């Protein structure tokens, strides 16, 4: 293959299986790209060159011996630094856990290992995954591959930035309030937040056990399907993981999308939408319409209360998880994360429990009023033009709450409802930064979202655009 870094994870895996290239060649291509990208974008926390090359050579040797190559055979990957590998420290973007060896390997990592992926590093992220912009005051802010003055989104900041920069083929992110979809939008890559319970959270740093989800960011929707296929499914180590069978997402990509009904929300999601983003979203709907999808406006319930209830749940659960460190090491948090944890410590038990009780009624209303009429909802990821790192550098100050609420406004209700949502790049804003849309589906209907996103990418070329070197 002439330009390995231009290929998707799926293309690379196919080429390695066909012996047109090797895992070692892929690793030798990605390691210098990763080093170079890191200098400019600060997207990695650690790169293990020797270990990665040895693992890639071992993968090649296994394939040469005739061992069945997995669906991700030999594909180099680096993941958000919150997926534990036994005996290694995961910083979780913080000062507190940077030297704390993990007791066990995350189920998602074990499953990617089994699928043949080769991990070569760990990625920068927002401290404890508690922030949507990509700022990190301990490891340095992660920068956008399309313009390093601009935010990457968070908390899976290094995942979005490294994949966009062609310095990583795919990455595990996590999404509690937008942390996969936001970096996917800001960095111009694809990312899927699965249904709550679809992917095991065992061995992943917790932020909010009622809302945390594990999912991939990658260059294409097909890559996301491959990754999700590898990691989805029940896990005895995570009591909240679902027993529902995992469909064949990859085979499902080939199914037609003609006749699928896509809803445009009549309220909330399109409020105060930036004109540049509106234009790109409308163009993406034209593409879906040209593929035979039926586009219709759909009335949606009031989401503001759900957004606030989701905020209360995350705040309270994060504060509970961090209560020991918040008492003993408050100075080791950045101002913003400490301020948010202090807010969570003040959420009353009644408020928290009522927010959890509201979830069931909210989901029933969403299913009855929205998903009975459409197969998926098409919506923006954020409503405003991508800001710079400097413009959003508010720390824990007075502007913090307003800014964070604005960034996560279109994300958090989806986490509150536990629904799957796929972010897909759909062009560039007037100032040159990427833009994506999200497709929100029924519970456990990731397959349909992936099918729609894949059909969209087959009709467009936004996912093939590369940021400036």
């Amino acid at each position, binding site marked *: 293959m002439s330009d390995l870094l231009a290929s998707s994870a799926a293309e690379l895996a196919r080429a390695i299986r066909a012996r047109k290239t090797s895992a070692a060649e892929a690793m030798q291509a990605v390691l210098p790209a990763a080093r170079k990208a890191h200098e400019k974008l600060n997207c990695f926390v650690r790169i293990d060159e020797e270990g990665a090359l040895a693992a890639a050579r071992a993968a090649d040797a296994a394939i040469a011996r005739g061992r069945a190559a997995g669906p991700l055979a030999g594909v180099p990957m680096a993941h958000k630094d919150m997926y534990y590998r036994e005996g290694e420290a995961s910083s979780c973007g913080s000062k507190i856990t940077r030297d704390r060896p993990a007791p066990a390997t995350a189920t998602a990592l074990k499953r990617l290992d089994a699928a043949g992926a080769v991990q070569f590093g760990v990625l920068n992220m927002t401290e404890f995954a508690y922030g949507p912009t990509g700022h990190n005051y301990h490891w340095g802010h992660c920068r956008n591959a399309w313009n390093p003055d601009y935010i990457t989104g968070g908390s899976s900041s290094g995942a979005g930035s490294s994949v966009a920069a062609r310095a990583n083929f795919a990455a595990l992110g996590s999404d509690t309030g937008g942390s996969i979809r936001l970096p996917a939008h800001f960095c111009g890559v694809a990312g899927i937040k699965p*249904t*709550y*319970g679809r992917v095991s959270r065992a061995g992943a740093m917790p932020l909010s056990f009622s809302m945390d989800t594990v999912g991939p960011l990658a260059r294409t929707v097909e890559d996301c399907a491959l990754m999700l296929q590898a990691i989805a499914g029940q896990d005895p180590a995570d009591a*909240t993981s*679902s027993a*529902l069978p995992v469909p064949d997402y990859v085979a499902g990509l080939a199914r037609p999308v003609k006749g699928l009904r896509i809803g445009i929300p009549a309220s909330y999601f399109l409020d105060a939408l930036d004109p540049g983003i509106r234009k790109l979203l409308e163009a993406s709907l034209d593409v879906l319409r040209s593929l035979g999808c039926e586009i219709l406006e759909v009335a949606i319930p009031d989401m*503001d*209360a*759900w957004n*606030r*209830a989701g*905020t*209360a749940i995350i705040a309270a659960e994060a504060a509970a998880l961090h*209560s020991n460190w*918040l*008492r003993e090491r*408050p100075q080791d948090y950045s*101002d913003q994360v*400490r*301020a948010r944890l*202090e*807010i969570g*410590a*003040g*959420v*009353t038990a009644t*408020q928290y*429990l*009522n*927010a*959890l*009780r*509201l*979830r*069931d*009624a909210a*989901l*029933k209303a969403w*299913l009855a009023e929205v*998903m009975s009429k459409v197969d998926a909802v098409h919506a923006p990821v954020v409503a405003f033009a991508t800001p710079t790192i400097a413009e959003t550098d508010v720390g*824990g100050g*007075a502007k913090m*709450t307003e800014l964070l609420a604005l960034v996560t406004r279109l994300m958090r209700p989806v986490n509150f409802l*536990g629904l799957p949502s796929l972010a897909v790049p759909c062009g560039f804003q007037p100032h040159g930064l990427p833009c994506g849309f999200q497709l929100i589906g*029924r*519970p*456990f*209907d990731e397959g349909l979202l992936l099918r729609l996103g894949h059909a969209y990418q087959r009709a467009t070329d936004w996912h093939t655009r590369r940021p400036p070197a």
Partner: protein
Amino acid sequence: MPTDPKQTYADLLALEGVTLDPARAAGVGELLRTQLEVERKATQALAFEVEPACFAATLRDGSR
């Protein structure tokens, strides 16, 4: 007896062993007050019997 909400909030956190940054006390109190008001409105129609565990079943039953 009138109380100072920001002091009450700081006292509550102190009972949890958390020292609230004084610069943030007033803002945090106000934020929680607004939050509670919205949630009170949203949850007042909830049936008496609803419990959080219902959500997982609705999620499962909501799949195709």
